């Protein structure tokens, strides 16, 4: 039942323009703040000014009664708890408004209501909040110490979760000719989607239902969480995500603000709105990425890895966020650290360390950006130790295509691919030989040139078995889609995931077109509203194309069978002889438009066969890949940089990405995903950092202090696509949405180290600020014998 694709192909694999860009590019999108609500009032929060303290009391002038709400008012509201079933996990209890203690700067203390946001902020300014400040746990290493301040007194220490992998390293140690040890750090940063969080809650007394509009990636899970916290039936909660201006994981959690707004809407007879401002966003909420690694590799003379050991940590902040939990990041570190390599023996322990910082959230790439940074800098360190090209040491260790599908040392099922071919393409595209020649002569401007690589796999659309293993409350099963033909022959697709930049309104229409040949403009995607869509864990983990794409394909195939069965009767043709082309059912010598079939089903049922399928032209189908441990896309990033060793600045001269995402539904959409991801990765590598002082105060509160790469900092990125199909998914698609953000910090840091190698300098921490580079250069000068 596949569609022929003549010249103007629009199905799977076609580079068609995105349908949704018509509204995005004309400023006609509708985001939370664009939607009008009659009688809406604005909320501003009093947020903790200290990182750690005892909350003694909140007082305010009597005239503000009814406009200020504290934890004591929210009787019966359950705190947010995100558990994992992993052994040793210590659960945290996060009240929507603080009680007893405050545990990070920006934690919600009181909710204030005003006719406008400015008036709500005026109310905040009138509050008197009595807090006894306590010493704060801040640093990722110091917070592990026995005498560190306790974030949760009842825990006894700050170790939220210990994750381990154990295999015997004795043989590796005995056989190794080189032992290479390094320490790496990725500093805390923020996600910074262009639109922050926001929510509007109202109580619908007719439907006896709470309606929560929220800028979220996972409306169904927010609905589950809100119902739980407020003690409502799930049918009493409707969550609507309108256009969402970027998520990147920040909108993959239920926030305490949403719980507060939902509760408040049930108390007062009008809608209530909270729109996050950038200061709240940076200082109180959107934190991610803070990792620390101590690693040792045991290798032979060629740099072949015999064994790998790691002691790692992630600073998870004060609370476990719903539903991903604070355990996800650490579990990912331990299981992903060996990367795309053959690692015969591996031992790793990760400590998820609580601190008086905002909860760490799963930013695009999640733990893998840090893991890739550590492992790929390690590969370069091995290369230096054994005196080989870093790209050759990668080739020495990469899983060969002959071994596919390959089960990694941590049990990851690499589904397909040719990793060595990818690095070969990258070496050629970046022209390694000419960079090496250029390095032989001094640059006219005195800068130093370096080249760096990174290689990684991206597990995407991992399903039931993986998430069940992590024991968190968002285990995805079958993803569902509804395909419904309307009487005029248009197709409605309903999915429970959400598209907020991924282009799913286009790519899922392409999937439907591939199966049914319906014109893309006649396919409408309904998403983001729990009232109209099947349950889903949402859009995260590079799962949209695989899971929603698979579900749409299956639903459309079933719908196609219903259509051909009806058409077969009407056309007096065996349905097995019918196929779809140009929006019609085509037989050996006759045809009938899908529109006619729809019209007859809905309006002229007297013409239908007596045994017609009573389900008609509406199908709900579920989908899960044959192997649910995830697809493994992979990529090699290669970059050439120039380092100004006097000022410590880094300029990217060339950037190449070789990427294999299996079958690409729309290569242009994938290009966009990679460009955007690389831009974010450049931010992680060179610019973005949320520093804290020793009292736990965040030191960047505006985008003047928190630097994002702009158009001048992101070079023209050259993309090379490979296309190795996944054996486990519809069309052979692989998840690829996070990939771009994983590789850049490692590749760029390796390039900087390559440039600075003649000076005996090796950096091991991102972002690579001028201060870090100059400090490393100064330390090398002090340490050098001259």
């Amino acid at each position, binding site marked *: 039942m596949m569609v022929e694709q003549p010249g103007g192909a629009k199905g799977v694999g076609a580079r068609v323009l995105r349908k949704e860009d018509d509204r995005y590019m004309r400023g006609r999108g509708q985001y939370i703040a664009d939607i009008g609500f009659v009688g809406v009032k604005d909320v501003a929060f009093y947020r903790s000014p200290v990182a750690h303290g005892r909350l003694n009391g909140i007082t305010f002038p009597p005239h503000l009664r009814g406009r200020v709400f504290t934890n004591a008012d929210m009787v019966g509201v359950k705190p947010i708890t995100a558990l994992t079933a992993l052994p040793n996990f210590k659960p945290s209890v996060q009240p929507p408004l603080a009680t007893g203690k405050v545990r990070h700067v920006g934690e919600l203390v009181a909710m204030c209501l005003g006719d*406008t*946001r*400015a008036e709500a*902020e*005026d109310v905040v*300014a009138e509050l008197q909040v009595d807090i006894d400040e306590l010493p704060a746990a801040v640093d990722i290493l110091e917070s592990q110490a026995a005498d560190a301040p306790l974030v949760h007194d009842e825990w006894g220490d700050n170790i939220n979760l210990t994750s381990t992998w154990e295999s015997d390293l004795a043989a590796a140690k005995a056989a190794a000719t080189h032992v290479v040890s390094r320490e790496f750090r990725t500093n805390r940063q923020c996600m910074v989607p262009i639109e922050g969080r926001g929510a509007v809650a109202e109580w619908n007394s007719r439907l006896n239902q709470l309606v929560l509009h929220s800028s979220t990636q996972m409306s169904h899970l927010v609905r589950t969480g809100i119902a739980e916290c407020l003690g409502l039936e799930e049918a009493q909660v409707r969550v609507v995500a309108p256009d969402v201006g970027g998520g990147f994981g920040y909108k993959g959690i239920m926030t305490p603000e949403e719980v507060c707004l939902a509760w408040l809407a049930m108390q007062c007879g009008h809608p209530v709105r909270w729109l996050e*401002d*950038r*200061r709240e966003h940076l200082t109180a909420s959107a934190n991610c990425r803070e990792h620390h690694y101590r690693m040792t590799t045991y290798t032979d003379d060629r740099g072949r890895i015999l064994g790998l050991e790691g002691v790692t940590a992630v600073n998870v902040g004060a609370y476990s966020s719903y539903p991903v939990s604070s355990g996800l990041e650490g579990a990912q570190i331990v299981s992903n650290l060996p990367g795309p390599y053959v690692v015969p023996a591996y031992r790793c322990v990760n400590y998820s360390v609580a601190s008086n910082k905002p909860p760490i959230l799963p930013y695009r790439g999640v733990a893998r950006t840090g893991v890739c940074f550590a492992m790929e800098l390690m590969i370069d360190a091995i290369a230096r130790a054994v005196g080989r090209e870093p790209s050759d040491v990668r080739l020495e260790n990469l899983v060969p295509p002959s071994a596919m599908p390959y089960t990694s040392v941590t049990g990851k099922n690499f589904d397909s691919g040719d990793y060595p071919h990818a690095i070969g393409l990258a070496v050629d595209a970046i022209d390694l030989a000419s960079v090496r020649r250029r390095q032989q002569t001094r640059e006219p401007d005195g800068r130093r040139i370096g080249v760096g690589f990174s290689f990684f796999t991206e597990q995407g659309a991992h399903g039931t078995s993986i998430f069940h293993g992590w024991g968190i409350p968002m285990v995805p099963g079958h993803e569902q889609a509804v395909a419904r033909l309307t009487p005029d022959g248009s197709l409605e697709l309903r999915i429970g995931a959400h598209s907020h930049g991924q282009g799913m309104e286009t790519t899922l229409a392409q999937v439907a077109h591939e199966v049914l040949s319906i014109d893309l403009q006649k396919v409408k995607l309904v998403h983001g509203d729990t009232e109209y869509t099947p349950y889903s864990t949402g859009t995260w983990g590079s799962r949209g194309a695989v899971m929603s794409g698979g579900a749409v394909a299956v639903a459309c195939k079933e719908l196609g069978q219903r259509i051909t069965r009806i058409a077969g009767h009407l056309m007096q043709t065996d349905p097995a002889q019918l196929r779809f082309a140009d929006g019609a059912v085509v037989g050996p010598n006759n045809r009938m438009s899908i529109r006619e079939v729809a019209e007859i089903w809905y309006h002229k049922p007297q013409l239908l066969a007596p045994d017609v399928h009573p389900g008609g032209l509406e199908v709900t189908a579920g989908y899960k890949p044959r192997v649910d441990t995830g697809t493994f896309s992979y990529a090699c990033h290669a970059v050439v940089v120039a380092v100004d060793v*006097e*000022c*410590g*600045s880094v300029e990217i001269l060339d950037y190449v990405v070789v990427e294999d995402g299996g079958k690409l539904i729309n290569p242009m959409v994938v290009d966009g995903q990679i460009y955007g991801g690389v831009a974010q990765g450049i931010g992680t590598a060179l*610019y973005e950092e949320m520093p804290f002082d020793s009292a736990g105060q965040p030191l960047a*509160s*505006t985008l*003047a202090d928190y*630097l994002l*790469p*702009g158009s*001048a*900092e992101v070079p023209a990125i050259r993309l090379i696509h490979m296309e190795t199909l996944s054996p486990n998914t519809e069309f052979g698609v692989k998840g690829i949405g996070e990939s771009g953000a994983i590789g850049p910090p490692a590749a760029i840091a390796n390039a900087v180290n390559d440039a600075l190698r003649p000076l005996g300098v090796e950096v091991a921490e991102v972002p690579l*600020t*001028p*201060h870090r580079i*100059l*400090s490393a250069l*100064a330390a090398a000068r002090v340490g050098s014998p001259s």
Partner: protein
Amino acid sequence: MKPTAFEYARPSSIEEAVRLLAEANGAAKVLAGGQSLGPMMRLRLAKPSMLVDVRRIPEITSITAGEGDLSVGAALTHAEVEDGKLPDTTRGMMRFVASGIAYRAVRNAGTIGGSLAHADPSADWITCLSALGAKVSVTGPKGTRQIPVDQLMVSAFETALAPSEIITRVHIPNLSARARWAFNKFCRKTGELAVAMCAVVIDPLRAVARVAIGATESRPIVIADATSLLSSPMTSRSIIYEGGHAFSPATAQIHATILRRTLEQAARP
């Protein structure tokens, strides 16, 4: 991030503006482009009772060529300078500096006078105009006076302006035909506040060899006679390292590098 409530006035003369400022007793603020004041009000770091919008006052938007200098209304925007609205009396220096201030959106609204009055050490005009030897006219309740730009800033975000004084005009000496200049700044990324900055103006016919070092922790460091530095830029390190500044080692190194490079660039024939 919304400002506290404030009054708004748009006077049509300097005298009226000064009167409004004086009546408010220090609680009112002058609004020009609003590119610094606006964010400060939204962060509630500034809570003025009134904004006195001076952008429509003819006296502070006009441009007049004088004897040996150019007199520019203080409310001229960076974009207007960038786009060549001023006669080029500085051999392109003003236009070059304007084009590198923040981002175009900021330049479209931000003004020269506003930047000088805000007195951010990292801003471009305070350093550029100090090197050019420019002066400002300021008008207050007691009349009008002139202040050399290198005397205007007292320390970070603090100027020699009295509470009710407004910068009305900037007087920029004309560079002669053989004058040379160089201007460099180091920013973490395009358009961001500078970490280090240096402006050099050499005008032999007017016996000028001035250097201004900006983006310090306070007012720019001005070297009124930089003749010897220009002949041996390598000696300039001591200005950064021995001037009693509180730079971190890395910041000091960046300052010293930008200073040396700018001197070398200016000295190059």
